[in-house]
């Protein structure tokens, strides 16, 4: 990717793409394009090795459609590939689809595939295979809800030609292509579907070899991967990857120090400052500024924070917001790693909105005053948090303490996922300490969680604001990136005022690796492999 392309962003890149490929000069723009002929595929003779990767998470199962394969911290994500890819700056780039464009009404997207790209077992990735994959993901009996949610807008998929796929949407969308990156819409080989749960066959840079849950995941290099480096060597350089899931932060860090792994995907916030200081000579640290955004959401469907049940609901929410000290969360929960969040996107993101009006500042006296004034200010409130994420729990704990200081009658509960989902369904909570993963395209966040008509918004927040809805719907079909960015910034300004939720902090992680690992850098939201980088261009120095 050239620097120019990086700065401009998705749709400009796409246009350059289209012009370039029609001139059959694709290789000039992108460092790697699918499809060097079999005879031409060569390896870089000096770069190889097997990286041992310690991750926080492990996959639940091997079928990459049925299970949510987290591309930041599950080794299995190394086997996944899709129609599109992203680069270090989270810009959408070509992968199996070499060109793509929407129709004028933004309801039909056409993807032209590279001819000759293969799955790990040698099957060709043609239009029928793609169609089969998309339909499989859309099947509610098979597709995990997260993967399926990427394709909710899809009405049907048609195959025009052996190498052309057309996706027809229910609603026009300028942002649809961002949903088709290898995560979550990854492609698996139709011919190997019966082995999907035991020996998955994908099209990513690494091939599956073996897997024992919570113990080890072995992957080997895929020799026929489509991407090449500037010299024409096929990626990845590495011979293989061994994933070692280690849930406890401390255990993972110790494994790195004890040379049991070469790379870890995360460390505890408590350990970060001293590690960075003491180990700089021996280890490289790779800070990832925003893997997600933490926030607290208010239940506006029912209860004291809902306009339906309480005319002073907004006042009460504002009181709660005034009671919360973002600096406290920054220090006590995140140990000063990362930044306080004023909007959904952080400064490192191309979607960062500059002039967002801030949420209510920390003012305990004002919080107390407003709470006393508001109706239901003494009502019993329940804060919940999911037990899978320490920072959600700790933020919840801190928020609980801060609200208690302001005189709120709050209790705090931590629950496993099924119970949390149950509580969402029944609107049986008042405040939720939660977070959301980074979305490559803002539409992925705003139209699912802020737009009033979205099922998830209705379920978890119940927020309705016409102006916000208008902005989100318009932004979805706006092609000019700067205009879109401003629209989403305006939405966040309104959100910070209406307070259906309160952004608290960007969830950053710190990856670290031994100095033997060369050529590695995670994408700024954490993915450990992406077009032209990450573990695709890394190697172990012997």
């Amino acid at each position, binding site marked *: 990717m050239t620097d120019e392309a990086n700065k401009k962003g998705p749709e400009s890149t796409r246009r350059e793409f289209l012009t370039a490929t029609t001139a059959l000069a694709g290789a000039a723009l992108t460092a790697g394009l699918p499809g060097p002929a079999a005879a031409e595929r060569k390896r870089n003779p000096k770069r190889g090795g097997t990286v041992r990767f310690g991750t926080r998470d492990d996959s639940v199962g091997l079928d990459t459609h049925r299970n949510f394969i987290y591309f930041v911290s599950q080794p299995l994500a190394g086997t996944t590939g899709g129609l599109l890819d992203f680069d270090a700056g989270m810009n959408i780039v070509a992968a199996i689809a070499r060109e793509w464009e929407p129709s004028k009404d933004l309801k039909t997207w056409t993807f032209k595939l590279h001819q000759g790209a293969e799955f790990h077992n040698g099957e060709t990735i043609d239009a029928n295979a793609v169609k089969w994959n998309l339909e499989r993901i859309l099947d509610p009996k098979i597709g995990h809800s997260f993967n399926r949610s990427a394709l909710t807008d899809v009405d049907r998929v048609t195959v025009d030609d052996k190498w052309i796929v057309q996706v027809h949407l229910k609603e026009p969308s300028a942002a649809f292509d961002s949903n088709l990156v290898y995560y979550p819409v990854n492609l698996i080989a139709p011919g190997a579907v019966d082995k999907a749960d035991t020996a998955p066959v994908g099209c990513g840079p690494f091939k599956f070899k073996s897997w024992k849950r919570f113990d080890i995941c072995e992957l080997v290099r895929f020799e026929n991967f489509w991407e090449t480096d500037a010299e024409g060597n096929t990626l990845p350089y590495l011979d293989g990857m061994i994933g070692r899931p280690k849930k*406890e*932060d*401390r255990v993972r860090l110790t494994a790195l120090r004890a040379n049991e792994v070469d790379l870890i995907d995360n460390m*505890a916030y*408590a*350990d970060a400052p*001293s590690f960075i200081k003491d180990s700089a000579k021996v280890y490289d640290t790779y800070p990832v500024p925003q893997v997600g955004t933490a926030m607290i959401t208010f239940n506006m469907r029912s209860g004291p924070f809902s306009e339906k049940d309480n005319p002073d609901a907004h006042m009460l929410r504002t009181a709660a917001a005034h009671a919360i000290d973002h600096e*406290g969360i920054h*220090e*006590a929960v995140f140990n000063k790693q990362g930044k306080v969040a004023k909007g959904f996107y952080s400064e490192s993101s191309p979607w960062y909105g500059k002039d967002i009006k801030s949420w209510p500042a920390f003012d305990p006296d004002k919080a107390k005053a407003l709470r006393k004034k508001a109706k239901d200010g003494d009502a019993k409130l329940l804060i919940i948090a999911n*037990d899978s994420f320490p920072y959600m*729990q*700790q933020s919840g*704990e*801190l928020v*609980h*303490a801060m609200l*208690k200081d302001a005189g709120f009658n709050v209790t*705090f*509960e*931590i629950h496993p996922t099924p*119970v949390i989902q149950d509580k969402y369904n029944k609107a049986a909570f008042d405040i939720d300490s939660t977070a959301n993963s980074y979305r490559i395209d803002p539409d992925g966040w705003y139209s699912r969680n802020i737009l009033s008509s979205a099922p998830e918004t209705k379920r978890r927040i119940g927020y309705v604001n016409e102006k916000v809805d208008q902005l989100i719907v318009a932004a979805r079909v706006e092609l000019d990136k700067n205009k879109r960015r401003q629209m989403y910034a305006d939405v966040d300004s309104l959100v910070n005022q209406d307070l259906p939720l309160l952004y608290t902090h960007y969830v950053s992680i710190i990856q670290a690796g031994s100095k033997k690992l060369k050529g590695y850098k995670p994408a700024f939201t954490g993915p450990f492999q992406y077009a032209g980088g990450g573990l695709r261009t890394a190697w172990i120095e012997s």
Partner: protein
Amino acid sequence: MTELEARKFADLEAIRAPTLGGRLARWRTALANAWHELRKSRTASIGAVMLVLLFGACIATPWITTYDPIKQNYRERLQPPSEKHLLGTDRMGRDIYSRLLWGGRRLVTIAILAVTFGLSLGIPYGVLSGYFGGRVDTIAMRFVDGLLAFPGLLLYLLIVTLAREWKMEGIYNDMVLIFALGFAFMPEVARLSRGSVLVEKQKEYVEASRAVGDGSLAIALRQILPNIISPLIVNATVRLGYVILIVAALSFLGLGTPPPTPDWGSDLAAARDYMETAPLIAAFPGLAICYTVLAFNLFGDGLRDILDPRLAER
């Protein structure tokens, strides 16, 4: 007479069919013996002293703590012991000393109530089952065996996970936990009681009472119970220590009461992240657990030495 003779005399009294006066006399000598033994037995004395200190601290907690245990102050996080904070502060800036005291009060209360509840369920269950025997006994014991077949912590895990989700309005949250723990502890008590009853049933004095014409239930309660109390008391005391370990382990796994309520187990779990930067945070809750369990074990050991005359020569 010498002590030994006095004790033997007390035993003889137990075998003879007692009148009320006789029974009282027996108890009086038994108690006098007990106090004497207690002061003599080193383990029991030390254990008793430790327990007195422990209970004292639990009762006096509202007066001897220095801070509100849930008040966080993130500007004073992870501080070592100082004048201001006797044992330092934890990761949210809360005073560890106060948290230990409140946590201990809660934990000891839960343990005592749970064991009491378990005893009050298990003893009648086991005694009646053992006394009546036959079909009743078989069915009752099969149910108990089913519960006992859960290895290790699993039964507790299941019950506590369930208990956490049942929130009864207006009732102190931990009550459900207490019931759960007591219920999980009941099978052992039932087994033990039944076993003792079976042994006692064959003894002479039971036959004697039957011959005299006492009703069956009356026999069970009046004759057998006092004789099985000893092993049960010892077992219960040691069980208290064990329950504390279990509750701590469950909170450590995340199944305890949610933060910010002070809890030794979850404080220990939270401290793991700071093992290198502030190891003392993990040390204090652990030491507190050790002390408490040791106190109960010591006293239980001493009690066993006292109450079971056969072992008195040790």
